[in-house]
């Protein structure tokens, strides 16, 4: 499975629709403090169904919607689309939307699906629902500071 592109629109500091094509092996994202690099990684996590606002550094889930600045009004919605391509060339786009009202949706190739379908997609392609594909900023030691039981859950998923 290849992640071909990540698209953000109204997600955190990415108020403008931003398409990020991904190379086959190694993408390095650089930029000054506060520019938006971790927001990109948050977007991938969010589109894959992250349920905890705290993990995304917010208090409530609406915190991921662009909240405006002194020059730009807040967005009404956040949207992230992940464009995948499997080994046979079949394309699948997984998406997520959240409105200020709290109304939210998961999308697969543009049509509404349930969180459960997104999770099934992850399991079919071996994307960890425990999040072991992501090491968040400042959290590299997480596997070590985790309890022995929490680590077992990771082993269970891998098994």
């Amino acid at each position, binding site marked *: 499975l290849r992640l071909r592109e990540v698209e953000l629109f109204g997600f955190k500091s990415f108020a403008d629709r931003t398409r990020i094509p991904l190379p086959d092996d190694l*993408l390095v994202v650089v930029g000054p403090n506060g520019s938006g690099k971790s927001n990109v990684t948050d977007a991938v996590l969010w589109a894959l169904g992250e349920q905890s606002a705290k993990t995304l550094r917010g208090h409530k889930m609406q915190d991921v919607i662009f909240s405006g600045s002194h020059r730009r009004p807040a967005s009404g919605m956040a949207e992230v689309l992940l464009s995948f391509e499997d080994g046979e060339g079949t394309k699948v786009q997984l998406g997520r939307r959240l409105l200020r009202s709290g109304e939210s949706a998961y999308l697969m190739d543009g049509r509404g699906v349930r969180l459960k379908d997104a999770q099934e997609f992850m399991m079919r392609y071996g994307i960890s629902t425990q999040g072991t594909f992501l090491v968040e900023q400042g959290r590299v030691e997480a596997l070590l500071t985790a309890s022995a039981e929490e680590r077992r859950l990771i082993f269970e998923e891998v098994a």
Partner: protein
Amino acid sequence: TRDRFMEAFEAVKEHFAVLFREVFEGGEARLSLLDEQNPLESGVEIFAQPPGKKLQSLQLLSGGEKAMVALALLFALFRYRPQPFFILDEVDAPLDEANINRFNRLLLQFRGQTQFLVVSHNKRTMELAEVLYGVSMGEGGVSRLVSVRLAEVEASLGIGRA
């Protein structure tokens, strides 16, 4: 099932021992089950001993050492159960130059097997990139992303710490 768990555990345990010796250039580490009789209920413990040092609690290790142990375990899990992509956000922050090089070697070693998205302030890590994107925050509090070359990065974005 118990057998599948034990198979996964033993495999990752082996990969971890090997990767640890690789990134620490010596020493030894192992994973162990707190309750061998009951693997499906048992917690998983980590023991790590950098070269020349005595085996002691992980928390006494230094910031950089802990990061390297964690990376060794993460990649050991990956070796058994590869994932389509791997996102690493500033994992090189606590590392000295020698360990940044070892981390970079890990990236090079695994790069054919998965898509890496690495966020970094470090020039050496940037040098490995197949593609380099620069993120910048405009005056209006809005982020934008552009494809950049390494030389541009050091000049215009004021980054590239090493």
